[in-house]
């Protein structure tokens, strides 16, 4: 497992938006709205924005379903971008278990991680003190 950067890479990075949600699936719409806004500001076309929105929703759903809240009872979502990359991170309080193998074409479970990998350019899963951070990157 590669370490995800905990801070934006360099002074060009901008912290665009952060969101702390309860570990409740009803909160996923908020995550999607944040992701879609960030993708639009980054300048992605509608298809790119949709991919970012879906990947962020999958990451947050995983955090809610499998990770659980961080020490403060929340799941933390952060979106920022540099000149060339949009970076979304989701931090939860869980220990990331090895995902199930990629399902076959008609497999019925374990779709979230492969879907996230297909949607964006990079997916990193980092174990940190007190939890896990999933970092999704979309390059321009």
């Amino acid at each position, binding site marked *: 497992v590669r370490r995800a950067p905990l801070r934006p890479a360099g002074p060009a990075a901008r912290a665009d938006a952060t969101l702390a949600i309860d570990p409740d699936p009803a909160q*996923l719409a908020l995550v*999607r709205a944040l992701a879609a806004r960030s993708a639009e500001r980054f300048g992605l076309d509608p298809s790119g924005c949709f991919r970012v929105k879906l990947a962020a929703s999958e990451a947050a*759903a995983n955090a809610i379903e499998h990770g659980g809240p961080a020490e403060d009872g929340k799941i933390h979502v952060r979106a920022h971008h540099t000149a060339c990359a949009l970076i979304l991170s989701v931090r939860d309080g869980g220990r990331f278990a090895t995902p199930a193998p990629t399902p076959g074409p008609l497999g019925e479970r374990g779709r979230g991680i492969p879907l996230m990998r297909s*949607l964006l350019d990079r997916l990193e899963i980092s174990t940190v003190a007190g939890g896990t951070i999933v970092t999704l990157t979309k390059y321009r």
Partner: protein
Amino acid sequence: VSPAIDDAGAGGDRHVVTCRGELDLHTAPDLRERLVGAIEGGKQDVVVDLTEVTFLDSTILTVLMQRRRELTDRGGRLALVGVRPEVRLIFEIAGLDRAIPDHPSVAAAFAAPRA
């Protein structure tokens, strides 16, 4: 559009589940219960109308694929209606765009010959 799911019998062993808005982990249990209820009630020809659905996530794909399997095992079928291009993209990325047939209308779905 706030998410909502409705369902109703359509005569005989036909059943229609109509969805709206963004479907995800939050709405998946409702969709699952309605589909399971219909299948356990003997419905064989089940349609999920996605005309007004703008987003769905992998938990919804899982619910649909599981019900498709159950229906196929019982000699029935699951069909979709009105899949929008952005929703089609999700099926394509998951490699499922040919797994469940998509029709332009509920009437067309029921009229399609059973495989």
